[in-house]
């Protein structure tokens, strides 16, 4: 293929999705970056258009030059944003670690099941992903509430006397995130485990390695790509999660997605929210690029 030169049909086939993404993904992102830099223009009522098509390029450039980093300075001054980032990273990190601890054994157990049952089991493990995210999070409210199923059950078997307060805490948020994203973690781990040649384990056993040594030295290292893919697939969106902290968290649960949502819909502080989004994107750009590289390599181009 000659680099850079596509024939007519191919050019159109590329331009349609490319144009769509440019219009609805790249341009909006660029705009967010711009707005985050230009407080004075935006601080008007939110429905006032920022750019009019009739303004022409000149006016746009002029506006773009009015770089006022107020919004970003505001972010630095506002302890809420700093706290949001830190606590989002912490909650997403803890949740991801916990999800790996649950997902790996599950993926392994499925991968080592009877081959005839394997595909059904993995389909069953992934199936909740197809059902409504909102509803699955909602289902946990009834479980975690003070008078919810979990507390009722624990009190019935006499493990506790007074209800545990889980709902409306960060613990509930972590449980919700682990639960919601579990299929994303199980699937790539399962895929990398399932691909492994069983004779590798037999060879390790033949060379004198016990089951544990075989796991640590053969199975686990070979499945690391799946583990990393699963962890990224969960961690990146979890950092910006909104629904789960909003429904399961308490008033002291601070996550960046929620902070931005509030700034946007309640405080109507668009530059602050935009700056928040840009900083979040910057935080995640490393993991995102890494993820994208892995994905495109994995697909074989």
């Amino acid at each position, binding site marked *: 293929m000659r680099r850079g030169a596509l024939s007519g049909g191919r050019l159109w086939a590329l331009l349609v999705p490319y144009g769509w993404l440019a219009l609805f993904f790249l341009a909006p992102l660029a705009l*967010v970056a711009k707005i985050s830099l230009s407080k004075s223009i935006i601080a008007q009522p939110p429905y006032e258009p920022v750019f009019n098509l009739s303004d022409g390029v000149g006016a746009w450039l002029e506006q773009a030059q009015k770089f006022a980093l107020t919004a970003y300075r505001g972010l630095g001054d506002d302890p809420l944003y700093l706290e949001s980032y830190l606590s989002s990273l912490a909650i997403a990190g803890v949740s991801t670690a916990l999800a790996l601890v649950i997902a790996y054994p599950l993926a392994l157990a499925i991968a080592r099941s009877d081959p005839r049952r394997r595909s059904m089991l993995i389909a069953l493990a992934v199936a909740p992903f197809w059902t409504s995210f909102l509803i699955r999070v909602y289902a946990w409210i009834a479980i975690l509430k003070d008078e919810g199923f979990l507390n009722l059950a624990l009190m019935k078997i006499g493990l506790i006397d007074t209800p545990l307060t889980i709902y409306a805490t960060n613990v509930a948020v972590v449980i919700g995130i682990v639960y919601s994203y579990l299929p994303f973690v199980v699937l790539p781990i399962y895929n990398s485990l399932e691909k492994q040649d069983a004779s590798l384990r037999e060879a390790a056993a033949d060379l004198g390695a016990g089951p544990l040594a075989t796991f640590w030295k053969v199975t686990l290292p070979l499945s690391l790509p799946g583990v990393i893919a699963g962890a990224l697939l969960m961690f990146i969106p979890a950092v910006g999660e909104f629904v789960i902290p909003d429904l399961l968290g308490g008033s002291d649960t601070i996550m960046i997605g929620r902070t931005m949502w509030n700034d946007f819909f309640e405080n109507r502080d668009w530059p602050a929210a935009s700056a928040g989004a840009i900083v979040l994107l910057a935080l995640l750009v490393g993991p995102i690029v890494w993820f994208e590289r892995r994905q495109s390599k994995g697909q074989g181009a």
Partner: protein
Amino acid sequence: MTAARLPRLATLAFGFAFLYAPIVLLVIYSFNASKLVTVWAGFSTQWYASLFSNAQLVASAKISLQIAAISACIATFNGTLAAFALERFGAFRTRTLFVGSIYAPLVIPEVILGLSLLLIFVAFGISRGFWTIVAGHATFTMCFAAVVIRARLAGMDRSLEEAAMDLGAGPVTTFLRIVLPQLTPALVSAWMLAFILSLDDLVIASFTSGPGSTTLPMRIYSQVRLGVTPEINAMSSLLLAAVGLALLVSSVLSRKRAS
């Protein structure tokens, strides 16, 4: 092997219990006669009845289904073209940017996508409503569609297309008679994935919707914030049943195809 059987079964039992217990509880309690969600007071289908008399909810469900169907079609079309561009066009200028725009929306927090879409619609004075939600949904779901279709395309034996051309079939015939039939399962699952992602989305819809275009998740969300109600349980159970049925049908179909 037998020694490892017990821990394996225990892991499976625990894992699936964790995954399914909340869903099962939710469905069971949708048939609860009591208004108190966690106290069982006998079997009743009254909440399903009241659900269908809730005109707002029904209207929102209709809007959501329409948006999901339209955006899934756009996403599958765009995703197919994008998958071909990624898999078959070799190197072209700004390919890296294109690849990035396909893969980034898979993981970027929805709040960022929603917020940026809202800003661009406002900036260009586009009034928000049904079609802005369609555009937003078609955008992030096309990336999922592209990945699904690309994976299938990558796994396809190129020599089949070469064989078709070798036997005298031109590019169009080759596409229609060789590539498309093999791609169909991927197209169907890409469409289904896009449809369900759209149907399920709350965040992007909230940013891009306007008056009169409240989607089902938005409606559910605003009710859920007020507390757990059996009516929402009933609503959820219906959605779960619909998705479960769709999954069952598609898996039966694909099994039939395989045999």
